[in-house]
């Protein structure tokens, strides 16, 4: 009985705080995406001709995002019946977009016009050998193109 109450309390905490954190995060993602819209990010390998005289440098952005108790619980139920695990989908979506935003911010700070050859790297940070997700790390990196001075 006590265990059941413990699980229910954890679920309620996870649901409440997790939802709040997710809503807040999405709001900030949308705002910053709007602000950085003019900085192009392309997965293109070859630079377009107008960038051929620019300087280039590596830029990276990374984020580690944790699951909450509710998401873990829902995902565990979902694995019984199969199908889309939407609770993890939104988690990874947030992590990727946040990583791109941080990379864009780094590029913008250096006065870049565009970031090319975007690559992602996703890794799981497990918790004490348990199964389940724990937290995910997403790294986004690319080459920033900075207009050369005096040209």
């Amino acid at each position, binding site marked *: 009985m006590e265990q059941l109450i413990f699980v229910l309390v*954890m679920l309620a*905490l*996870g649901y409440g*705080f*997790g939802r709040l*954190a*997710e809503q807040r*995060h999405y709001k900030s993602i949308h705002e910053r995406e709007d602000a950085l819209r003019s900085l192009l990010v392309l997965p293109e*390998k*070859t*630079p377009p001709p107008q*960038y*051929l*005289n*620019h*300087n*280039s*440098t*590596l830029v*990276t952005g*990374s*984020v*580690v*995002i*944790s*699951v*909450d*108790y509710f*998401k*873990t619980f829902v995902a565990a139920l979902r694995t019984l019946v199969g199908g889309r695990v939407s609770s993890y989908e939104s988690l990874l979506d947030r992590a990727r977009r*946040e990583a791109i935003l941080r990379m864009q911010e780094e590029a913008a700070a250096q006065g870049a016009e565009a970031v*090319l*050859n975007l*690559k992602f*790297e996703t*890794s*799981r*940070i*497990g*918790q*004490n*050998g348990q199964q389940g997700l*724990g*937290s995910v*790390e997403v*790294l986004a*990196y*690319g*080459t920033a*193109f900075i207009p*050369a001075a005096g040209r």
Partner: protein
Amino acid sequence: MLISNMEIVPSKRVVQHLGLVQGSTVRAKHAGRDIMASFKNVFGGELKGYTDLLSESRDEAVARMTEQATALGANAVINVRFSTSSIAAGASEIFVYGTAVIVEDR
């Protein structure tokens, strides 16, 4: 040192290839951070401590790669790739590799 993850360096010409250079580091988080992280696993949200730790270790790996490239006499590393793997509970390896080259202005 110019570092880029593209094969072409705009406005520069690759004069000489010097081969593969790499840098890696294995980092662990301290127990305090692990305990904080397990609390976070209930509430959700970003783990700032881990984000900082991983970007520090990435800088370290890039610094090691740059050191190798400098020793070879290169002035740029192109086609850089990152790779992360968790090798044990609480420790992860950051690996970065690229091609050391000598470039000159076109």
